[in-house]
């Protein structure tokens, strides 16, 4: 039994390595920047969604306010860069740390809340963050921050036309998030989180300090999401509150995980791989009509997948888990 388990872990690791390797080769074949752009976004959302999955999927604390951490990552990086000349690489780390600290600070009051009260609190706090940035003159308020473009540079992590550096960074981020999840899955924390999700009272009786577990999950999750935000800011070279802290980001982080399989190792990646290209393509190729057909298609797909596969797309792959999904 233990052998089977170890084999499965090893198999996951190999599959991930192969996939990452294949992805790394993709730009050799795909020269079209539009497609590259979709790939980058897919990887980015896969990374974000995996990070979200740590807190919401594994630990069961459904957050629809992760845009806050995304925005904090983006803003920290760009404010440090434009105002103090700090290189984005350091800004990125700083953003991650700040986001993690804020996540824990918020966790203190929030983790007492359960169910809808918690979800709404997360939405609300992200909305407060958005409003504050929208009105914060020093941080550019509604104008946002335009990152001064000075030509290609790894040091400043900006590139004029080439998307490859961004692609590889997104790939690394996505792989990192995957690896962290993989590692956590078979760790003390991973078990505690799932226990907390399923039954906090029982977890407590088994020596799990529920509060600290949630804090840990929140910190890791926020840190990774903030790195994603910093990446996005560099990638776009322009940020404004609505476009990095809007509610839609919180949803977009959750959606791939939910469609792919919440609280699973592969769910967010799988979900992002399907959802993001679909979103982009429906908009690009049927959105120009101005009649909302793209929305209808997009929305209907979400409904269909949520209803047909409540455990997400991964349940198509693992029969044992699909068992008993619906009553």
């Amino acid at each position: 039994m233990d052998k089977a388990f170890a084999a499965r872990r090893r198999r996951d690791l190999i599959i991930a390595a192969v996939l990452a390797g294949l992805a790394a080769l993709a730009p050799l074949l795909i020269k079209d920047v539009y497609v590259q752009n979709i790939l980058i976004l897919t990887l980015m959302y896969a990374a974000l969604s995996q990070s979200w999955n740590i807190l919401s999927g594994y630990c069961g604390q459904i957050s629809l306010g992760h845009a806050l951490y995304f925005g904090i990552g983006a803003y920290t990086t760009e404010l440090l860069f434009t105002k103090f000349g700090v290189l984005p690489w350091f800004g990125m780390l700083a953003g991650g740390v700040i986001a993690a600290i804020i996540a824990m600070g918020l966790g203190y009051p929030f983790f007492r809340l359960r169910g809808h009260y918690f979800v709404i609190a997360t939405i609300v706090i992200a909305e407060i963050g958005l409003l504050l940035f929208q009105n914060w003159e020093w941080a550019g308020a509604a104008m946002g921050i335009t990152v001064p473009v000075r030509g290609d540079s790894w040091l400043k992590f900006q590139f004029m036309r080439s998307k490859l550096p961004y692609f590889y960074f997104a790939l690394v981020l996505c792989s990192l998030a995957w690896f962290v999840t993989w590692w956590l899955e078979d760790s003390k924390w991973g078990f505690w989180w799932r226990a907390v999700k399923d039954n906090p009272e029982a977890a407590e009786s088994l020596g799990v300090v529920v509060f600290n577990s949630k804090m840990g999950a929140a910190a890791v999750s926020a840190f990774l999401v903030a790195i994603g935000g910093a990446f996005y800011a560099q990638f776009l070279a322009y940020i404004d509150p609505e476009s990095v802290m809007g509610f839609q980001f919180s949803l977009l982080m959750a959606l791939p995980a939910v469609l792919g399989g919440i609280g699973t190792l592969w769910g967010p990646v799988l979900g992002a791989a399907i959802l993001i290209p679909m979103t982009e393509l429906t908009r690009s190729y049927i959105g120009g009509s101005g009649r909302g057909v793209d929305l209808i298609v997009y929305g209907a797909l979400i409904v269909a997948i949520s209803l047909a596969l409540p455990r997400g797309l991964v349940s198509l792959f693992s029969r044992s888990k699909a068992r008993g999904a619906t009553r």
Partner: protein
Amino acid sequence: MGLLYGLIAVGLALIFGLMDVTNFAHGEFLMLAMYLSFFLFAFFAIDPLLSAPLVAAAMFVFGAVVYLLLVRFAMRAKANAGMVQIFTTFGLAIVMRGLAQYFFTPDYRSIPQSWLGGKTISVAGIFLPEPQLIGALVSIAAFAGLYLFIHRTDFGRALEATREDPGAVALVGIDKNRVFAFGWGLGAALVGLAGAIMAVFFYIYPDVGASFALIAYVTVALGGFGSVFGAFAGGIIVGLVEAVTALVLPPSLKSVGIYAVYLLVVFIRPRGLFGSM
């Protein structure tokens, strides 16, 4: 204004609060109701005030159908039922917006002349806009009606029981689908009332729901899930807080006040003001 938030929230309070089913398409229900009022006005020149019962009736059917065709299946999910509900209704919201754009075009509509539009009663220097006054009265009536309905009738109790354990109500001979379809219908009908009144003084376009949805959720949660009275109180508090913060903070931050109050309340009382769940 607070009572209007209350009126919008009351339908949600029924679906979200009392039945414990997440409805992310609440704003879109409101949008649909507003369009219904608008078209009844535009084509048949029926004043929104008169058409309100019609709209409510139509929305009742719509709500029940949404439950029977979609939500029923979302609730069956044994695995992460909460997420399935969130995203099924979220998908529905997107579809409704798309359909509205398709059929109604993205144009901004509004009802120019109605019996109430723009009329104002002035009492001792305080201006009370009539549509909002009527809105307030309707919402008090709706709350009172719903309160009595939930607390005094067997149906109300059946609704609560179904929320508690949808699988167990059959043990006492209750058809959970009938109860919930009725609940959704009723919730949607209340949104219909809100929409009809809103249509008098608000603009209408496919995305209009987004402006209200979050406030409605906060209102329900502030008052506490499972409590009709809570949603009512929540509405009033939200209205008051909004007016007060607009005086202290820049108006663009006025919702921060509301959100802060919500956070404060749940920090002290994790189940909202009057919540039972």
